[in-house]
C-alpha cells in the first residue's frame, strides 16, 4: 500500500470512528470544555493524522542530538539521575549549615541556598528596612564570616551549590569563591549556579536593586569573569519558575524565560564576549505545574526552541551552547493550606512531569509550605518522593519515554509555536528589557493570574480540598518554629565583624569598586577583594547604589 492509499484508509477509518463518537456523545455528553490555558481546544484523541508533516530527524532526533527535544544527554538517566537539590535556608548560618548536612547525609546530591530578603536586596541585617525579615525566608548573610559558617565542613570540591541570588549575585559568588579558597580548593573545581537572573525580578519576584541596564552590566561582568576563573560554574539560571508562580501560563513561562535569555545573550555579545565562550554556562530554571502532559511537552518544547535560537539566530557552533540545561521546582502556588497532605500527591505528579521532561536537577516542595517554612520531616518526604521516582518506578530506564506519543508531540509543537509568537512580539517591542520597562510582560502575566483565580472561583478549575472535596475542622500539623533570637545574634555578629577587620583595606576596596562601577571596568575583581576584606553586603551594595541609583517600580494594575 502506498503512503497516499494508507492515508486515505486512515481518513476513512477515522470517519467511521467519528460516527461512534457522535453516538457516545448523545448518550453521555462531555463533562466540560477541554482547553489549555493557551486556549487550545483539545481533541478527543491524537492520531497519525495530527502528525502528517512530522519529521523525526529535524523535530526530535535522538537524545543528545540537536535540537535536543528528547533530552541533552545520549543516555539520559541511565548514566546518572538528575541532581536532587532541595532549596533550604532559614535563620542563621549555623542552623542552615545543620540542615544542609542533614540533607546530604540523607542522600541529597547538591545544595541549594535560600537567602533572607535583606541579603537578597543588599541590606545588612541591622538596616531599618530589614526589620522583621532577618533569617525569615532564608539564611542571613552579611559578610564572609557568615558564609564561612554556612559552608563549614562541606567539601566544596565534591558538592555543587546553587544560590538563589540575583541583584547581589556577584557578592555571594565572591564570598563562595573566598570560602573555597580558604578550604584550599582550586577554583576550577568548584561547581554550582547563581541565579543571577535580574530581568525576571522586575516582572515576577521583586528582589531588584539597581535599574535594568546597570543590572545587565553586572550580569555580563559575571559571565566574563566566571568564564575565565571558574569554568564549571553556571553563571546564570534564567528562570521561568517565578514567572509561572506569578500567574503566567505554560506558554508564557517558556516565552518570557527564553525572551529574557535572548536579552542576556545579546547583552553579552554587545560587550564583546564570544557566543561559545559564555553560552555553554547558561542554565535555566522551570516550574513543574499541575497539568501533567502539558508540562512534559513544555520542557521538551523549551529545549527545541533554545537549540534553534542559539544555532540559527546567534550562530553558536559549540553544541553545548545549544543545550538547554535546566533545574525544576514543583509549583509552590499549587500547594494548599487546606488538607496539606494532599500536597504530597501534587508534588509527586509535578516532579514526575519534570523527570519525563528531562530535567537536570529537581526540587520537590514540602507538603506544609502553604503554612510555614517546611519542617525537617516534610523535607525528608519531599526528598523521598524524588528517590521513589528515580529508583522504584522505572521511568528512568529509557530516555524520553513519552517521545513519539501523538498527543505529546502535538502539544510540544503547539507550545513551541505559541511561545515563538510571543518571542516575536517581544522582538517587535525591542527586546525583553523594553518589554519589561513598558509593562507588557507584567500585564500579560497579571491577566493570566486573574483569569486563573476567576476560574477557581467559578469552579471551572478544581482545587481538591479547597473548592471541592473540602472538609471542616482540620487537624493542625506540626510546623517549623523559628528561633526568635536569631535576628539579634545575627546583628551582634555583624557588629563584631565590622569592629574586628582592617578598616583601611575595606575602605580602599570599596573605593576601587566605586571607580570600576563609574569607569565601566569589570566589577567582579573589586567585589572579590572587598569581600575578602570582610566588607559587608550592605556596604558593597550601597557603593553600587551611589553610582547606579535604585530601580523604581511602576505599579501597573
Amino acid at each position, binding site marked *: 500500500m502506498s503512503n497516499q492509499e494508507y492515508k486515505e484508509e486512515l481518513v476513512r477509518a477515522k470517519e467511521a470512528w467519528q460516527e461512534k463518537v457522535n453516538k457516545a456523545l448523545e448518550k453521555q455528553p462531555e463533562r466540560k470544555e477541554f482547553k489549555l490555558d493557551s486556549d487550545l481546544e483539545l481533541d478527543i484523541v491524537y492520531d497519525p493524522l495530527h502528525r502528517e508533516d512530522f519529521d523525526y530527524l529535524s523535530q526530535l532526533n535522538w537524545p543528545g542530538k540537536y535540537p535536543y527535544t528528547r533530552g541533552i544527554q545520549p543516555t539520559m538517566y541511565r548514566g546518572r539521575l538528575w541532581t536532587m537539590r532541595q532549596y533550604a535556608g532559614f535563620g542563621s548560618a549555623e542552623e542552615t549549615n545543620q540542615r544542609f548536612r542533614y540533607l546530604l547525609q540523607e542522600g541529597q546530591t547538591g545544595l541549594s541556598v535560600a537567602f533572607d530578603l535583606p541579603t537578597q536586596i543588599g541590606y545588612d541585617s541591622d538596616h531599618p528596612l530589614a526589620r522583621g525579615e532577618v533569617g525569615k525566608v532564608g539564611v542571613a548573610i552579611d559578610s564572609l564570616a557568615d558564609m564561612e559558617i554556612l559552608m563549614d565542613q562541606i567539601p566544596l570540591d565534591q558538592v555543587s551549590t546553587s544560590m538563589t541570588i540575583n541583584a547581589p549575585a556577584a557578592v555571594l559568588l565572591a564570598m563562595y569563591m573566598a570560602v573555597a579558597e580558604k578550604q584550599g580548593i582550586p577554583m576550577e573545581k568548584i561547581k554550582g549556579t547563581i541565579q543571577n537572573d535580574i530581568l525576571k525580578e522586575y516582572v515576577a519576584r*521583586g528582589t531588584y536593586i539597581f535599574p535594568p541596564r546597570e543590572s545587565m552590566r553586572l550580569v555580563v561582568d559575571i559571565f566574563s569573569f566566571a568564564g575565565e576563573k571558574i569554568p564549571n560554574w553556571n553563571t546564570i539560571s534564567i528562570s521561568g519558575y517565578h514567572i509561572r508562580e506569578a500567574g503566567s501560563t505554560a506558554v508564557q513561562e517558556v516565552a518570557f524565560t527564553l525572551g529574557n535569555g535572548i536579552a542576556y545573550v545579546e547583552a553579552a555579545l554587545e560587550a564583546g564576549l564570544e557566543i561559545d565562550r559564555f553560552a555553554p554556562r547558561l542554565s535555566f530554571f522551570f516550574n513543574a505545574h499541575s497539568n501533567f502532559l502539558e508540562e512534559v511537552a513544555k520542557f521538551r518544547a523549551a529545549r527545541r526552541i533554545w537549540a534553534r535560537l542559539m544555532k540559527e539566530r546567534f550562530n553558536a557552533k559549540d553544541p553545548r551552547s545549544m543545550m538547554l540545561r535546566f533545574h525544576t521546582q514543583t509549583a509552590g502556588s499549587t500547594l494548599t493550606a487546606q488538607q496539606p497532605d494532599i500536597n504530597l500527591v501534587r508534588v509527586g505528579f509535578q516532579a514526575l512531569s519534570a523527570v519525563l521532561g528531562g530535567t537536570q536537577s529537581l526540587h520537590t516542595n514540602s507538603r506544609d509550605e502553604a503554612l510555614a517554612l517546611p519542617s525537617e520531616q516534610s523535607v525528608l518526604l519531599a526528598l523521598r518522593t524524588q528517590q521513589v521516582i528515580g529508583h522504584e518506578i522505572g521511568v528512568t530506564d529509557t530516555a524520553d519515554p513519552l517521545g513519539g506519543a501523538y498527543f505529546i508531540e502535538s502539544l510540544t509543537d503547539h507550545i513551541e509555536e505559541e511561545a515563538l509568537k510571543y518571542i516575536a512580539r517581544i522582538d517587535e517591542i525591542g527586546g525583553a528589557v523594553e518589554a519589561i520597562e513598558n509593562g507588557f510582560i507584567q500585564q500579560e502575566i497579571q491577566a493570566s493570574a486573574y483569569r486563573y483565580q476567576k476560574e477557581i472561583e467559578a469552579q471551572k478549575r478544581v*482545587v481538591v480540598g479547597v473548592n471541592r472535596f473540602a472538609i471542616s475542622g482540620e487537624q493542625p500539623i506540626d510546623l517549623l518554629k523559628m528561633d526568635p533570637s536569631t535576628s539579634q545574634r545575627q546583628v551582634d555578629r555583624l557588629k563584631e565583624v565590622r569592629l574586628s577587620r582592617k578598616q583601611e583595606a575595606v575602605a580602599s576596596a570599596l573605593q576601587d569598586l566605586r571607580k570600576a562601577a563609574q569607569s565601566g571596568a569589570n566589577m567582579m575583581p573589586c567585589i572579590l577583594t572587598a569581600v575578602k576584606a570582610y566588607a559587608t553586603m550592605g556596604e558593597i551594595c550601597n557603593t553600587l547604589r551611589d553610582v547606579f541609583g535604585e530601580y523604581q517600580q511602576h505599579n501597573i494594575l
Partner: protein
Amino acid sequence: MSGKPVRVLVGKIGLDGHDRGAKVVAQALRDAGMEVIYTGLRQTPEQIVETALQEDVQVIGLSILSGAHMQLLPPVLEMLREQESHDIIVLVGGIIPEEDRVSLKESGVSEVFSPGSSTEQIVEFIKQKIKDNK
C-alpha cells in the same frame, strides 16, 4: 452599593516580592466597583499609614508572605490609633500561622485571609463591614 464607592488601599508591606495575590485582589475589588490604590512593593508601616491617610481610604488590605507580619503589622495598627484613624478597616492576606492570626485580630486586624480564600469572600466581607460601621 449605593453612594460613593469604597476606597481601598492594597499594599505590600516589608521586603516580600510576592505580589500575585495583592494584584489579583486589587483587580477583583476594582471589578466590584471599589476604588483601589495599589502601593507596589517594599512599603514600610509608616508609608502605608501615610498613604492611607492621604488617600482617605476606608479599608487597608495588606499582603505579606515573608513571615515578618508580627514585626510589621502591629506598628500599622498603632499608628492608625495614634492618628485617630482606627475606624479604617485593616485586612491581611498571606501565610499567617494560627496563633499570629489570633493575636493580630486582637490588636485590631478585622480579618486575615489565608491561601485558598476567594476574592468574592473578600469583597463580601468589605461590603458587610462597611454596612456595619455605618
